[in-house]
Every structure is written in C-alpha cells, then in structure tokens.
C-alpha cells in the first residue's frame, strides 16, 4: 500500500517558488535549490538510492521552502530524510560534539569560566578551525555558571501555590547558556497566575537531526513525548517553549521527520507568545509598564514555519510605548549548527548579510528575536544586542 504521507513530492508542480525563497540557493551555486534537491530528485532516489546528489548537504533546513510552497510539499523534510536515509554515515567528531548540546552543556556549565575563557582565545579558535573544521571567525555562546534546572529547584516550591499549571520545555540553550531567559519565562507565567512544571527533558533533537543522528534524535523524541505526556495533569494544560526550533521539533519534526507518534502532546504544545496572547484574549491580561525603546523584530525561520511570528509581533505591540520595527523576513544564515562548520560558514555569512544590512538601517536600540542561534548570529555580525521577546515582556511587568 502506498503511504500517502510519504508522497507529498507528488504534489509539486515545479513552480520553483521554493528555490526563489531559498536563502542558500540565492548566495551559492553549490546548492541547486530545494526544488531540485527535494521533489525532483526524490523521484530518482526512489528509483535508485545511488542517485543521491551530495549537493543537498548544503540545505540548512531553514524550511523557508515549505513556507513558500503553494502545493504543501514537505520539501525540507524530504531533503533531511534523504540526507540520512540514503547518504553514507560518516562519523565526524565535530558533528558529534556540535549535536550533543546537552552533553556539551553539562560539561560547559561545570567549568564555565574556563570553557568561556578558552573558546574566546584566538589560539584555541585557530586549533578548532584546523582540527575540527569549526570556523575561527565564529563567536561561541558563553556557558552559564549554573544550569537553569538547578536554579529552578530554588523556586519549585512556590509553583505549587498556583492551581493552574503550565509545562515549560526550556531546551538546552536556556539550561546551559542563558538561564536568565528561563527565569523570565517563569516570571511571566507566574504573573499570569500559573505555576511552572519542568520535566526531565532531553535535547529536542534539532541539532541531532541536522547532523544526521536520526536514531539518537528518535530516542530523545520518544523520551520527551513520554515525560511530557506523563507530566500533563489534564488535556487543557499547555506545554510551552520559548525556543522556536524546540517547539517546531516537538510539534512537527517528531511526526513528519522522525516518524514518532506525538499525538498525546501535539495539541498541548504551544509557542510561548501564542500562549500568552491567548491568555490575554481570555481576559487574563498582564499589567505592563511603558518601555520607550525602539526595537527591530527579526522573525526566525522556524517560527515562521509554524506560523507563530504573528503572535510574537502582536505581543510586542501590547507593550506600551514600545516602537516595533518589523524587519523584512530574511534568514540570518546560522541555521543552528550549520554556521559552526567551515564548509558552510561562508554561505552562512552571505545569507545573513541582507538581514545585517536592514538591521543597521533600522537603527534600533536593540534587536528582538525568538531564536537563540539567530541571536548569536546577529550579535556577532551587528553592533546590536539581541533579546528575547519574553525577556522584554518580563521587564515590562510591573
């Protein structure tokens, strides 16, 4: 029996709008674009797996092709699946390390001072470049001196004061690199009169998928579905995340790419700004003080793929006195671990150039975006500080 969910490529009418919107194909001829790498050559790969084109490794999985596609072809999923299903597995230490965000995070937070010191040293960068093929031009995110989960233990007892609960999927970045965002989330959720539950989650799997560790990603996925669903006190409780890519993974990548059954949690997963906005609509409105900043808002690719950028924008507009300049939607180029690899670094930077230019043109006080890796890329390439919309909201709470 033909599995209809696997044949979305069959709907492609070759309009090529995906390739027009592909940020990678725009800057390099090495990548023939999503149409050719996805639906076109999928027919050939079905005929003979040897016809796999190595050029599809240049896909950064930003999923802008899927947003552009008028025929609902799961282009990026086709490419990602082809990458690991047909290509030969080659184990690279670099890819292993880059994709094990939780392992690296545990280590990094333990010795944060030393790790942060070394990763900013020119000499170390040079060695990373030569040995691990990690570009020396890339700035590394700092590790925090303690994890978010450790901090959360200190506030867990207060969460029981709230009758309503929200499960918060914090993700690796919040846990190991930037616990402050997690603290802001807890502050905002508490301000809405709800308690926060956190589970023994594992990395959502996005970096594992990007680096071809599909089996590992599947086992993480299964674990997360299990812990999240068993922590759900009832059907109505929301599972929120402030990371656009984690949310996309839980909601879309699990069933579409990893072929996992996420039906016990799919209806509960919500991106945090959507959750807050829905609370506002129910009358549970936060009292916000005016913030007289001018911010430039950059919508991350994966947030756009979920159609959730509108919620963030709407939420930012609720903050009194805040001027929000919405930037033209462009990919920043980093695409998770993509921009941490020598072979893609140049492409990654070229992709981002347009975004950096329009940020400079907007002359904001700072940039706002939902995605941690977009933040790294923008902070590295522009003079502006980047903050998360939830941190801004937390600041506005009286």
């Amino acid at each position, binding site marked *: *029996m*033909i*599995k*209809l969910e696997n*044949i979305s*490529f*069959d*709907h*492609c*009418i*070759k*309009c*090529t709008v995906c390739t027009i919107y592909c940020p990678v194909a725009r800057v390099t001829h090495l990548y*023939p674009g999503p*149409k*050719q790498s996805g639906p*076109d*050559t*999928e*027919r*050939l790969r*079905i*005929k*003979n797996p*040897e*016809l*796999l*084109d*190595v*050029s599809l490794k240049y896909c950064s999985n930003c999923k802008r092709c899927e947003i552009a596609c008028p*025929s609902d072809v799961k282009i990026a999923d086709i490419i990602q699946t082809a990458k690991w299903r047909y290509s030969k597995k080659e184990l690279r230490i670099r890819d292993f390390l880059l994709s094990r965000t939780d392992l690296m995070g545990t280590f990094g937070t333990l010795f944060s001072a030393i790790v942060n010191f070394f990763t900013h040293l020119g000499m170390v960068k040079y060695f990373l470049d030569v040995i691990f093929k990690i570009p020396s031009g890339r700035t590394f995110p700092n590790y925090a001196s303690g994890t978010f989960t450790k901090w959360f233990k200190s506030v867990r007892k207060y969460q029981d004061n709230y009758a309503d609960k929200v499960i918060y999927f914090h993700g690796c970045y919040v846990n190991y690199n930037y616990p402050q965002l997690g603290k802001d989330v807890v502050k905002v959720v508490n301000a809405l009169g709800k308690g926060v539950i956190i589970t023994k989650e594992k990395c959502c799997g996005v970096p594992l998928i990007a680096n071809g560790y599909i089996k590992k990603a599947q086992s993480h996925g299964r674990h997360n579905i299990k812990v999240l669903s068993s922590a759900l006190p009832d059907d109505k409780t929301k599972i929120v995340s402030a990371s656009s890519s984690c949310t996309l993974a839980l909601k879309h990548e699990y069933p579409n790419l990893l072929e996992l059954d996420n039906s016990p949690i799919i209806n509960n997963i919500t991106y945090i700004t959507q959750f807050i906005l829905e609370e506002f609509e129910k009358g549970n409105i936060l009292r916000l003080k005016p913030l007289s900043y001018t911010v430039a808002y950059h919508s991350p690719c994966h947030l756009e793929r979920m159609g959730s950028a509108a919620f963030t924008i709407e939420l930012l507009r609720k903050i009194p006195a805040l001027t929000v300049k919405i930037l033209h939607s462009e990919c920043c180029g980093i695409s998770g671990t993509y921009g941490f690899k020598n072979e893609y670094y140049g492409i990654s930077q070229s992709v981002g150039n347009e975004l950096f230019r329009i940020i400079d043109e907007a002359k904001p006080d700072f940039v706002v975006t939902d995605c941690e890796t977009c933040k790294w890329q923008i902070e590295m390439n522009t003079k502006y500080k980047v903050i998360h919309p939830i941190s801004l909201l937390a600041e506005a709470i009286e």
Partner: protein
Amino acid sequence: MKTLEAEVIVIGGGATGCGVLRDCTLRGIDAILIEKNDIASGTTGRNHGLLHSGARYAVRDLESATECIKENRILKKIAWHCIEPTGGLFVTLPEDDPNYHNRLLEACRFAGIDAKEISVKKALSIEPNCNPNILSAIWVPDGTIDPFRLTSANILDSIERGAHVFTHTQVERIMLKQNQVIGVQCYDKTAGEYLEIYAPIIVNASGVWGQHICKTAGIELKMFPSKGSMVIIDYRINNVVVNRCRVPSDGDIIVPGDTVSLIGTTSRKIPYDTIDELVVDDDEIDVLLSDGEKLIPNVSRARVLRAYCGVRPLIAVSGEMDGRDISRGVVLIDHKERDNVQGLITIAGGKLMTYRLMAEMTTDLIAKKLGNSKRCLTYKIPLPGSEKRVGYTKKIKYFSGIPNSVVGSTHYRHGERVHNILSLKKRNYGLICECEMVTLGEVEYAIKNLKVNDIVDLRRRTRIGMGPCQGELCAYRAAGLFTEFGDFTPDESTKLLMDFLEERFKGVKPVLWGDGLREFEFTYWIYQGLFGLGLVEDNNT
C-alpha cells in the same frame, strides 16, 4: 527527384524494422530504412515496456512463452542498457481463482521459465507497496525494457555500420515491374521532396500499417487492429513488475519503467480506419485505475501523468475476413508464394520481446533470396551502449564533479555512450529537463547523432518532457537548442515548441484532474500567458 539504390528497403521504423536493418547491415547487406514518422513512434513505443519472462503467456500460449524466455536471456546480454532485470511477481488476490497459481507454476516449468513460489511475506518485502491481502505469490524473471532506447540503439548501430535511415518519410507506393518489386516512391516530409529508392527486396515491417503498404503493391493483407491503453503514474510506485495471477485481462499488470510506473492494459477491437486517431476512452482509465488499486492500494491517489494507447498488429494469415484465423504469433509472409509478387516480404505480429527473432527470421529469408550465406550475429553482438556492463557507482566516480543524479540518469539511458555525452564543462551538464535530468550535452548528442528532427523525437531519445511537468520547464529550453545544434531558424524552433506541447497535451487530456490539472494550468499560464505562444501562431498565419 533524388534517387537512391540499395539491396534491401525496410519500411517501418519500429523495433522489428530497425532489427531487420541492423541484421542486414551486420551481414553486409546494403539496406535503407524508411519510416513515415519517427522511429518507435508506432506500436513499438506504445506498450508498457515489459521485458516478458514468458510467464504471462505460459498457460495459454506455450510457444510464445518459450520464445519470450529465450529472447529475454539474449536481450539481457546484448541490450542491457535498455533493460532493468527487476524481476516480477504474480500475486493472487482474494477474488482470483486460487488454482491458477499452480497452473502457472506448472506451465512455467514446462516452458523453461525459472518461476518460483515465494511466501506472501517475502513478496511484500520485495514490493512493500503491494496489496497486503494477497493470498500467494510467484517470482519470475520479468523485467523492464525501454522500447525507445532499444530501437534507437539498433538504428545507431546500423548507421555507424553504413546503413541509411530516412525518418519522417512516407512511402507513397511500392514500384513494381511485372511481378517483381523494384523500389519505392516516397515523400520526405522534412525536406519537402519526393525520392525514389530502388532495391530488389522490400521488407514491409510497418506493423498494423502494413495493410496500406501492401495495398500500394496491389496486395490485400487484412489487419485486425486491437487497441491497448495504459496509464502512467508520476513516479516509480513499484520496483518489480507486479502481475495479477489470473488469465491475462484488463488492468492486471503494473510495470516500473525508469522513473515512472505504468498500469496496463486494455484490449479492444477497433476499425482499421481509426488507427491514426486513437483516443483513450474514459472507461478504460477507470478500469485501469480501479484494477490497479487492487494490486497496489492508493495508486489512484498518486498523480496520473498520462494515458496513451497503442495498436496491436494482429494479422489474418489466409486473408479471410472473419477473424478466426488471426494469429498472435510471428507472421512472416513471402509474397512471392502468397501473391506471386517477387521481392516483397511482410513481417508482422509478434511482440516487442521477439523483435530480434523476427528480424533474424526475416533476414534469413532476405539472405536466401540474395544468395548471402552469412549467419545472423544479432544474438551476440551488443548494441551501442551495451558493450560493457558497468555499474552506477563506477560511473559516478568517473564523472565526479557532475551531480550523481545526472551521471546516473545519463548512464541509465545511454549505457557506455555516456562518455560521448558528459564532460566536466559546466555548460555541458547544465540541466534542460529538471524532472528527468536531461543535460544540454545529452540534447546536443541526440540532435547530432540520433536522427532527431523535432522535440517529440528528442523526447523518445532522452526522456525530455516525460517527467511530472510534462514539458513545462524543459520544452522552451530544448526548442532553443535546436537552433544551436540543428539547422533550425528561431521561427522553426517556435513551431517545434508548439507541436511538442500539443503532443504532450494529447496524453495529459484524458487524465486532467488533481495535481496533473494544476500542473497543466500552470504550464498553460507559462506558455500562453507569459510567452504568448498562441499569438505566435496567429502572426504566422
């Protein structure tokens, strides 16, 4: 008027005619082939491309079955680049007679076909898309064969060995001197001129059109055309041939063919005067899809690319009208014996599978008439492209730098001739057809070497325009290349483009729904709305 001379004139550029031409050439007989349209444009190019193991005929027609398995083994050797030895399954559905399974196994053993019973589980692992409710399965050495490549390779070899081929040239009449044929008068449609070719022997290999050819020599030969329709599915839904284990009937076979799959076939008697204007009927498509659904569930939810039909050239041997004497086997007629016309031979009936055997039989008769004592060699000399059997992996490595999909597809289509086509120059491997990975180099090679007169011919040599977009993105690019690599003015190229799109539309029209309809609307918008192709025609007239 141009005149030419040869020892043999072959009329008809189907598999049989091209096979006769090659056989003659290999035996040192000077032969000329005339085809009114393009090679493989008649019945040869309008079947499902099944490399029969013979199993399909084994129960009812043992002779055909033994012929098939013998030729199956020969073709795998001499024409491997036109063949995929996929293997095939005969599956019994719950509603089918369960006894046919054993009858088929028995008959296959008798015919010398290595058929073996396999478990349902094994069958489903070989063909995961197959209906899981099947009761039993038999594995047979079926495969797929590309009739366009096969015919083209025969022509290419003949030309390289000195034969002459005239395509798009219509035979007006066979010239006779008393009871002896002396040649043919024909009209070259491309050059717009008449020509006369003289030869003491004429082979009528024009299949179902042979009735008309014979008539020009005053001979009555009665054909009983039977139409067979097929539908093409957008992609390769099965990797092995899937047959229904029952007495052959409508819609009981699904054949993978290169990047697509075909559901075949129907069988309907049609009047002789309609053979040039065949249409696929709606109810045939319904039957094919609903029966295809029984073999591979959900197949009708995949995109149907095209529907097309061919005519089986069934011939009445004794000239009687009631059709009882219709033979489905090979018919070789020496008209000297039948009608007292010396030098005219008709070869008809048979199957694509037996084209080489038919050519051998015909050429044996020609050689006898000419006093040529050379033996047939076509069973062992490989066709151009099939000289060496090299796997994908090696070729991909050899052409590293060119995308694997391009190298693999080109090698698949042209075998060893891939070396005459691909080069590491960037322009050479730029894509013209994005669905089937046809490069500029391949188009150049085809236009210059493979008797290509228009984009429709180019399609038969390269698969250009045969993918899901049906010419949407490649047709205009290909048209442009005809001015670069062929002798065509831009106006003529535009005409080629229009003819090609019309030809593509013919096959798409019967299946215009769903994604196919969306695709077609988009194509229409590009060519009519954006390029204004309709206006071009107005200006010319």
